[in-house]
Structure formats: C-alpha cells, structure tokens
C-alpha cells in the first residue's frame, strides 16, 4: 500500500499533505497531554514495530505470503494519536532511507496508513468491545474486536489509496488525453486494490494484530493493555469522518470539474479518445521521440543521449569488474 512517487499527481500529494498537517498538530498536542510520561521511547518502539511487522511475511493458505502494517495494534496499545506519529515516522524512514513509498506521496501514505488505518481500527475495536483490555473476562471478545478492527482499518486505508489512484486519470491528462499519473480510473483501481486487501493482506493484518495481542495477554497478563485516554469526543469524530470523506471529494472539486466524471466514463467505454490512444499506442517508435524531443533543439537530445550512454557504459564496466573479482553483487 506504499504509494510511490508519480502514481499520484503533485497536486494530489499537496492536498493530502495539507490534510495531514492539522492531524499531526493535534497528534502532538494529544500525545503531549495524554500519553504516560515515557511516551517518546514508546512511540519509537511503535514505529519500529510497525516497520518490523512489514518485514514479517506470514504464510497464508495456498502458499502465498503477505505482510502487515500494524497500525491498529499500535493504536490499541498507545492510542490512535501516538500511533499516528509512530506510523508516520516509520513511513518517513521507509521513504527516505529505504526507498519504500514516495517522498511527494508521503502525505498521502500517511493519510492512509497513519491516519485512516489506526483511527478506523481503533474506533471499530472499541465499538465492538467498549471495555477493551480492561477485564480478564472479555479476553476472547477483545481479540475478536481487535481482529475485526484491524481488518476494517487496513481496508479503509486501502480504499482511500484506491480512491486517490482512481481520481488521477479524471483530473490529470495531457493534451492528447493520456493520463499523466496513475492511468486507472475508480472502476479499475478500487477492485484492483480491494481484492487483495479484503482477502490476503487483511488476513495478515488480523493475524499480526491478534497473534501479538494474544501472546502478550498470555505471557504477561499483568501488562495493562487498556489505553487510558479520554475518548475521542463526538464532534472530533464527526470532523475526522468528514475530513476522510471530504478529501477525495475536495480534490475532485478543486481539480478540473465535476463534469469530468462524464468524460472519464465515456473514455472507459472507449467512445471518446480511446481510438486515438490506440493508434498511438501500437506504434512503438512513435512514443519516445515524439514525446521527448518535440519542440526542443536537437543538440539537447544529442547531449543527453551521449551523457546517458557514457554513464551507462561506466556503470556497466564497473559492474563487470565486480563480477570478475568474484565479489557478490549485493
């Protein structure tokens, strides 16, 4: 679910980041007020845990594997606000240092995985088990609630990502009608994202959350799992809900126009520009030269190809030398 750069338009990324800024600000305030005093190390633990969780490939029936995000788990243990900061930091490190997930798309990734995921997961869990983690007698119910919560959280996040993908071709196309970023409309993006998350990844998230909760419960029953934080007030819930709903809609509104829905659907059915696209599409040579050098002085093209060619040669030779030395190409 880590959205790389260039799948979303910069405009979308800016809008998503803008939506995250107040959330981060409130998170800091909440964490400073509410969490027990050892908050910073605990959030660091939360962040690295989410990170580690993403590396645990859990086997699934049928021989496939998948990994978890763990946002709901952290929300249940440290509270959703702390989870927001912890997962945001994990995502930032992944984007900057491990190249997983885009830098421009950081805001969007945070919106999905650090905001929607933990908050939905936390809310659903507490809806099912209002006394989550406080009583020994409700252990089973708590686990089920956490499982359902984490499943809902992950899928809500995936849905947000799908919507973000899906609105791209409606809003951002070049003069010829080619999508500039993610080319798939809502009709393709939503099923493509959701099928995987409703089944495999959702299941992994549930296993990850429940396995840890169950283990902690049985190995260290004295550990207080309930997270004592004043419950999210109703107006805030409404505000958050509205924000979640409004962001994609707002993007549509501020983008080209509502009317684009129509043309996009036409395009999907193949009446609009598709024939033009098909014509271009199958003449392979037409794609690059036409696009790249259009209107540019020829010498720029020459210099660029020369530079790229030279650099590639050096890289190639260096790699060959590596093989000859018997060094493993790490």
């Amino acid at each position, binding site marked *: 679910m880590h959205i*790389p750069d260039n799948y979303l338009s*910069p405009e979308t990324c800016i809008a998503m980041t803008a939506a995250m800024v107040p959330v981060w600000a409130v998170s800091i305030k909440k964490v400073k007020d509410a969490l027990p005093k050892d908050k910073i190390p605990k959030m660091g*633990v939360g962040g*690295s845990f989410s990170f580690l969780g993403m590396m645990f490939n859990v086997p699934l029936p049928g021989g496939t594997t998948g990994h978890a995000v763990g946002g709901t788990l952290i929300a249940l243990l440290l509270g959703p606000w702390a989870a927001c900061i912890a997962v945001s930091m994990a995502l930032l490190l992944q*984007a900057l240092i491990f190249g997983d997930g885009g830098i421009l798309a950081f805001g969007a990734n945070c919106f999905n995985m650090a905001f929607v995921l933990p908050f939905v997961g936390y809310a659903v869990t507490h809806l099912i088990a209002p006394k989550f983690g406080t009583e020994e007698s409700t252990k089973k119910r708590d686990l089920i609630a956490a499982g359902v919560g984490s499943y809902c959280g992950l899928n809500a996040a995936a849905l947000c990502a799908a919507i973000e993908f899906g609105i791209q071709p409606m809003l951002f196309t*070049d003069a010829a009608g080619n999508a500039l970023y993610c*080319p798939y409309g809502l009709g393709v993006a939503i099923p493509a994202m959701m099928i995987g998350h409703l089944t495999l990844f959702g299941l992994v998230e549930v296993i990850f959350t429940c396995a840890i909760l169950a283990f902690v419960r049985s190995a260290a029953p004295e550990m207080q799992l309930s997270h004592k934080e004043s419950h999210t007030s109703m107006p805030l819930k409404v505000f958050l809900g509205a924000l979640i709903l409004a962001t994609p809609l707002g993007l549509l509104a501020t983008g080209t126009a509502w009317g684009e829905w129509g043309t996009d659907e036409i395009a999907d059915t193949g009446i609009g520009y598709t024939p033009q696209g098909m014509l*271009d599409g199958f003449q392979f040579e037409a794609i690059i030269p036409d696009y790249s050098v259009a209107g540019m002085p020829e010498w720029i093209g020459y210099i660029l190809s020369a530079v790229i060619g030279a*650099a590639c040669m050096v890289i190639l030779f260096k790699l060959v030398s*590596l093989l000859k030395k018997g060094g493993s190409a790490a």
Partner: protein
Amino acid sequence: MDRTLMRLLGRILESDTKRTDSKLPRILPALRLSVVLLCILLCALSRNAVFVVGILAAELIRLAFLPPQRIAGVLGRLALPVLFTLLIMLPSVFLGHPRTMLTVTMKVTCSVLLLLLANEEMDWKDVTGAFRSLHIPGIFTMTLDMTMRFLVLLGRLADAMLEAISLRTFDILKGRKRDRARYMTAGGVLGTTFLVSQRMATQTYEAMECRGYDGVYRSYEKHRFGWQDAVYALLIPLAIAAFIYCQAAL
C-alpha cells in the same frame, strides 16, 4: 523474513560507519534533501520528457562515480520499484493510455534513483538531522531517532530468537499443521519482542529522566553554511530554470 531483516540491519550499520571515508564535501543535509525533493517534485510536474531525462542523466553520472559495489547495491534496490511499476502500468497501454506507462515508469525511476543516491551520500543521521534543522517539532525528530534505534535493537533480538527457533525446528510438519506452527512462531517472536521493547522503552525513559530530561531536546550537531553549501544551493534556481525552459519549449 530473517534474511530481509538482517539485510536491513546491515544497511543501517553500514550507513553508520561508511561515512568516515567519504571524500565529498559535506553539504548541509537539509539543503541536499531540499534539492532532492525539488527535483522529484519538478519531475512529477514535468509534462516534458527532456527535463526528466536530463535529471536522469545527471543521476546516472553521479552513479557512475560510485565504487562498483555501491553501484550494484543501488541498482539492485532500484530494480524492484521500476519493474513493479512497469508491470502495474502495462495494462494501461491497452486501455488507451499508451504513453502513461513510459512516462510514469521513467519518472518513478528518476525519483527512486534520486533518493537512493541521496542515501548513498548521506547516512540516516543526516536525513533525520535535516528535519531537525528545518524546525520540525522535537517530538517528531526524537521519535525518528528512537525508531531507528529500536529497529536495530529489536531487529537483533527478533533475529536471535528466529535463529534459536530454527535450531529447534525440524521441517516435518505439513500443510495446516505447519501453518499453525508458523503462526505461533510469528506471534511468539513478535510478542516477546514487543514485551522486551516495552521494558526497554520504560528503562530508556528513566535513563533520560536521570539525565535531567525535561521535555526539550537540543541538538549538538551544528553545520555552518559554507561556500560549498552556497554552490550547492545554486542547483535550486538552475533546476527551476531548466524546468521552465523545457516546459516552455513544449
């Protein structure tokens, strides 16, 4: 799992020690990061391939100057996102967006390469340090540092546990039973790691308290704005000018 984990930890440790041999002038990390961010942004905004190819060319040159081992590392990490994007974007060719596949793939290559190279030249401390100098609230930067630290400490612990388990595991279970055993293993390893991590977090907080921590965290590292930084900063107007020129020519 254990392989990925060890590779990750190895990368952090390597990044912590490799910097000593660097001959490149030290550029203000925040500045370097800003330039990378700007280039990624401009690439994303560009409606013209020349600009993106230009940035790509510059990146390839920088890559070519690296030692072979590092080139291999960068290319290895670059391959996955690029191939993945190609695969994802392939159907779009038949859905009426023939150029999208190439545009998006090229831009993804460019952005990922920009980041990977930035990481080759900075260690993670520079990256998180850059955030510090941009006046991001201390709670974020401290959480960032702590996340890295716990990642290494807990990663080592999880790895040691997996190794211990592998000594006691004999691959004789089949099907359901094997899956069940694996879930239990994963839950046990992660659960134990979690419990230990909670204890460590509390102890760390106490250690901070013992050294008088009162909620404010000041950084010792100081990097003055030197002439190298000024030269490097010229890249910003240069990139913007090139961008505008390319867009205008379209």
